[in-house]
């Protein structure tokens, strides 16, 4: 599934912060992790990820350092900063509000949009 451009833009920063909060990582692995988390539905490109990482670094939400990959290659690793964790907490609050609201709204009109039935309902 292709997410709309706006939705892609809005979710990318919190996703990267959340993935980095699991531990430091690098570009290729972050894209792989997004693929895994989305069950293969979301495929990021390098053109999206690296500018985003550099922007987050400019805002001091993440920090980068050069290290060596297992293969012995130079590799840039990214780690979340304290400011990044605070930002992530804020994202989490806002997203849970947004997602809950949408789930309720879509649930009320479930007849019209069966595809959007809230995940909790499906689980039950």
């Amino acid at each position, binding site marked *: 599934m292709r997410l709309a451009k706006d939705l892609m833009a809005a979710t990318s920063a919190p996703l990267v912060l959340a993935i980095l909060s699991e531990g430091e990582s690098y*570009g290729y692995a972050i894209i792989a992790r997004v693929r895994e988390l989305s069950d293969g539905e979301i495929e990021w490109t390098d053109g999206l990820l*690296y500018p985003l990482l550099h922007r987050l670094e400019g805002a001091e939400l993440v920090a980068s350092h*050069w290290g060596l990959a297992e293969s012995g290659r*130079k590799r840039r690793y990214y780690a979340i900063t304290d400011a990044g964790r605070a930002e992530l907490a804020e994202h989490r609050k806002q997203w849970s509000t947004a997602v809950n609201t949408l789930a309720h709204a879509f649930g009320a009109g479930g007849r019209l949009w069966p595809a959007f039935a809230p995940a909790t309902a499906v689980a039950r």
Partner: protein
Amino acid sequence: MSRGDTGRVDALDPESAIASWRAYLVSRGSLSDGDADELEDHLRSQIDALRAAGLDADEAVLIAVKRMGRQDEIAGEYARENSRRLWKQLVVAGSPARPRRLDGGVIMLAFAVLAALLAKLPWLLGAAIAPAVLGGAVLAMATLAASVAWRTRPPRALVAASAVGFAVIFVLALAYPFGGRGDTLVIFGLHAPIVLWLLIGLLYAGAGWRTAAGRMDFVRFTGEWIVYLALIALGGGVLMGITAAVFSALGADPSTVLIDWVAPCGAAGAAVVAAWLVDSKQEVIENMAPVLGRVFTPLFTIAVLAMLAGAVVTGGFGAYREVLIVVDVLLVVVTGLVLYVLSAQQPTARPGWTERLQLLLVLAAFALNGFALAAMLGRIGDGGFTPNRVVALGVNLVLLVGLAGTAWLLARRAFRADASTRRLLAWQTGYLPVYGAWALAAAVVVPPIFAFA
């Protein structure tokens, strides 16, 4: 035909393919070495994953490169992040909210011709020499402002504000009865253009004129405009020299035509053309700015240190009357150089030797300024406060405060972990209006106070 056959004629060498891919990206001019390393690691990770899935090395390279997206797209994304230059966003489809007009070479030429004509208009209408030159220059800059506004399409309020500013300076240029030794005339002539240039900056930055990024774009524009103008002036000077030589040899005197017409009209037209070139041919100059900054920072540092050594050896400035003016010019150049280097820097760049050299340069300029101030204050008794001295002191103060803040932030950046350039940018761009306010005061208030001496 067999896969992996080493005898295959058109076999793709993975290493050379990766090297040429990387060279292509770097040649686009928007990637630092670190960014290229990072992308190359990404590409190689992709290749490894594809090979692990059973592909041959050459197949893996081809698919991995393809998956990295269209290469100009990558370069475009990088361009946007790396330099944050508004014009760079043009590379990326559909990003700027307010598209700039970059084509229109014909319109630019029309603006250039208009500037050249308007530069001579007051003279044609029979104005005296001082108002003719000043008024012509204001009109030429107004045309330049109009051409910038035509391209950037700033909000109406900003256009109105700068139009009022230009009108006021134009009226004063014609109305101020400069006389005597011409000191206040020179002061007006040096400061009014700064006010007008900042008004042009207002139009250039448009709606973003309050933001550090918008102002820094204008600083960058200024630096690149000066480089282009210098190149054009160089070529124009050579051309005029040859023309003069040939006509002199023909027995005709070309000096009136060249000095009264070609030089002022050419300068006015060149100002417009240079501004257009900055916005439409950035790729060329963009690579030049950081290089020039890096070349000239050490040279200036050495020169100022030499001057400082000279001041120490000779015991300071002795007989030279307007010593402060010379040092002011030096401080202006140092301020400009520091701004120029900063404007070319990537926001995430780590501090290195450039920062330390800049700091040394600023501190050396401070010390030299101390000598000049001592010499000046020692002799303020004889002659008292002339307009030149008041303005020289004012300029000195304004520049010193600006450079002191810069030095402090540079020191933090060079010697501590505060690696981000954000505070430096905020200070430098926040201080720009101070230059404007001072220039306005010097141009408008100082001449009447000293009775247009």
